């Protein structure tokens, strides 16, 4: 069956390739002539194209995970990769996280570049010993002899109605470990640039995606579509400039923060929204520079509040920019409860736009 598939694909390539090439050329021409704005891309396609390009550029890159091959990916992120690169580059694993993560780390020890997918990061807990003790700490313990160029990726945080065991955010847990890099994209451009950077990176990277963002479309620049496009690790992005209050967040909450900023603008509060992009290394410089400009901080995350990413950001700002603060730092986080199933309770357990708006107003001493 595989041979037949290859035969069909080859045929399509020869006969349809020329045709399709002509088609895309003409499409591009028309795009250039008609479209004033940039193209749009879903986060899903951004991730897929990033993995595809990195696999084609470096033969050491391979993909491993549950359902990544024949099923085309549980969330279709790895769609088409098995057909394009074959079973020697795309591996469907049994449902044994500890085993296949360890195998991925071992392959990375030997110099390969695995991209290990967790169907959600909740399942990474089964393999967390390998992520932390076998991957993160190896370069240090071996004084540079053994580096681990591996990427652990998958959806993180709450989805919709999946309950307590499938909704936890692991950003704080992984970002507390020295030796790991933790990235959390928001837009399609973030997804492409950060994933490409992560795959090229010689250190272990935990790449936290978000299931609800996969289907969202974002405008994407020509530069971001280029196969050599890469975003720097450890640098946050100022999504919206402002001067009254700094809102720092990552992943899906960036979208909420931008909506909150719109609402705040109507009330005359100009909010600066920072998209962290990188949880570890944390871009303390950008955050502190922004707070020194606005004097007020609101941090937002989806995960549990205690010992979270927001807690670290608040501590960092209080330590470094204390005299610049005009108001106490504000934290908006997921509720301090396991995620409930009922829709209304789930809504109460997660930050909403109104929560961010309220916190920003509090920081500006404008609350009732």
């Amino acid at each position: 069956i595989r041979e037949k598939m290859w035969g069909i694909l080859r045929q399509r390539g020869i006969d349809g390739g020329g045709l399709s090439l002509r088609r895309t050329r003409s499409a591009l021409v028309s795009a250039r002539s008609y479209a004033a704005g940039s193209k749009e891309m879903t986060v899903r396609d951004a991730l897929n194209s990033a993995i595809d390009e990195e696999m084609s550029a470096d033969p050491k890159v391979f993909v491993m995970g549950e359902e990544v091959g024949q099923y085309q990916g549980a969330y279709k992120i790895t769609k088409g990769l098995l057909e394009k690169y074959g079973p020697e580059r795309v591996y469907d694993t049994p449902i044994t996280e500890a085993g296949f993560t360890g195998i991925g780390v071992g392959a990375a020890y030997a110099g390969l570049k695995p991209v290990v997918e967790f169907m959600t990061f909740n399942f990474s807990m089964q393999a967390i010993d390998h992520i932390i003790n076998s991957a993160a700490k190896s370069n240090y313990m071996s004084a540079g002899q053994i580096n681990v160029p591996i990427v652990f990726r998958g959806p993180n945080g709450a989805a919709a109605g999946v309950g307590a065991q499938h909704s936890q955010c692991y950003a704080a847990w992984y970002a507390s470990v020295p030796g790991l890099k933790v990235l959390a994209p928001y837009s399609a451009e973030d997804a492409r640039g950060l994933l490409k950077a992560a795959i090229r990176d010689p250190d272990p990277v935990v790449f936290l995606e978000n299931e609800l963002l996969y289907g969202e479309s974002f405008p994407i620049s020509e530069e971001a579509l280029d196969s050599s496009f890469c975003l720097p690790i450890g640098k946050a992005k100022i999504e919206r400039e402002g001067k009254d209050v700094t809102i720092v967040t990552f992943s899906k909450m960036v979208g909420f923060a931008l909506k909150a900023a719109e609402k705040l603008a109507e009330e005359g509060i100009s909010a600066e929204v920072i998209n962290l992009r990188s949880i570890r290394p944390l871009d303390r410089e950008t955050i502190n520079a922004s707070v020194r400009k606005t004097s007020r901080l609101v941090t937002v995350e989806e995960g549990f509040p205690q010992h979270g990413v927001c807690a670290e950001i608040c501590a960092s700002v209080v330590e470094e920019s204390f005299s610049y603060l005009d108001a106490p730092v504000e934290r908006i986080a997921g509720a301090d409860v396991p995620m409930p199933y009922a829709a209304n309770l789930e809504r109460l357990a997660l930050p909403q736009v109104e929560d961010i708006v309220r916190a920003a107003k509090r920081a500006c001493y404008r609350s009732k």
Partner: protein
Amino acid sequence: MNNTCIWILAFEGFGREREALEETVLLRYEKSLTYLSFFLLQQHTTFFTLIRYCIFQITQKKKTFASFFSLLSKTKSTAEMALSRLSSRSTTLLQPFATTSLLRRRHISTDTTPITVETSLPFTSHLISPPSRAVETSSQELLSFFRDMALMRRMEIAADSLYKAKLIRGFCHLYDGQEAVAIGMEAAITKRDAIITSYRDHCTFLGRGGGLFEAFSELMGRTTGCSKGKGGSMHFYKKDASFYGGHGIVGAQAPLGCGLAFAQKYSKEEAVSFTLYGDGAANQGQLFEALNIAALWDLPAVLVCENNHYGMGTAEWRSAKSPAYFKRGDYVPGLKVDGMDALAVKQACKFAKEHALKNGPIILEMDTYRYHGHSMSDPGSTYRTRDEISGVRQVRDPIDRVRKLIIAHDIATEKELKDMEKEVRKEVDAAVAQAKESPIPEPSELFSNIYVKGFGAESFGADRKELRATLP
């Protein structure tokens, strides 16, 4: 003394007929343990003399097993070997040790003409035909076995003293008694084959070409250590010799080793990975997860269970429902090997490498023993008797086995071997002295090697306003 029954069969022949009689030979000592010994006697000792002597010694109840053996050996002529085998509750068969032949006296020889030696025990196998018991070796190899094992033994004993002198801190897991596994394996493979092991890694590091000075420096936390003092006893690595550590988490090395095998297959290297784990780790779930994937994907992985019969302080019969670790792979073939016989280990590893390259994973169970406790904080005698330890040392010691082989094949004299051991001791002492003089790491080393590429990220000491660094 309850449960003591002695049947000693002495006969005057050599050869295959002997094997048929072995099953009936048993010697038991002490309720808690079963020792099986078989004494090959020379022609002039009569059967009845021996029986009378043995019964006398046992009924006296005064002699320990070890001294009983040495008494008995004095009644024999020069070419005599003894074998003792540790077993759990079931009785196992006895097999003869290598036969020896008296050769003309020669000077200490290092030639490579093949000598064939039979392993002490045949291999027990699971789902596969075992390799032959006849192992090809040479004078040069036997002498190198002796020297390298003596070096490893000396290193571990020196580490013991250094730990007691508080120059080594934290954990120190010693390998003495198990040297034959490291040495036999190295003899069968190349430096392109990968090895990964647990925290009991000092001798494996040495076997891969690691230096004594690097090892002692690392143990004492000096910057000249193989991990620049940042790893410690459990984290020795030598990537240029395909030695991937040195892992502190029990069982973690199992999937990691299968990952190394995956990389070897992916890169078409025609090499295999040896993953060493203990009887304690043999029950870990991740091992079976990794085995499943290794078998599915035909990875060139050899999993070696170094069964020293105690997982920390718990005997194997208390922690494994099925202590036949070579069979635990179920669909993966396995081989049980006398881990105190370096030649048997060599044969098994050679066989396993060939198998893994063609057919995928295989399990080797090395029946071995550690003289020290689990680590330096474990005296090692609360869960086993001192008599057991000294008994194994007397009868199964891997270095003594090779020593007797060397003497029997007239490759070197006892004095020459003793001189070699003295030389080894001096070498180890010199390395220790040199390591003691080595510098400790610079404080800036606290922040080095966190990342390969730090992108200018910041890292902090305990007081971040006092101590911080930018990662390059």
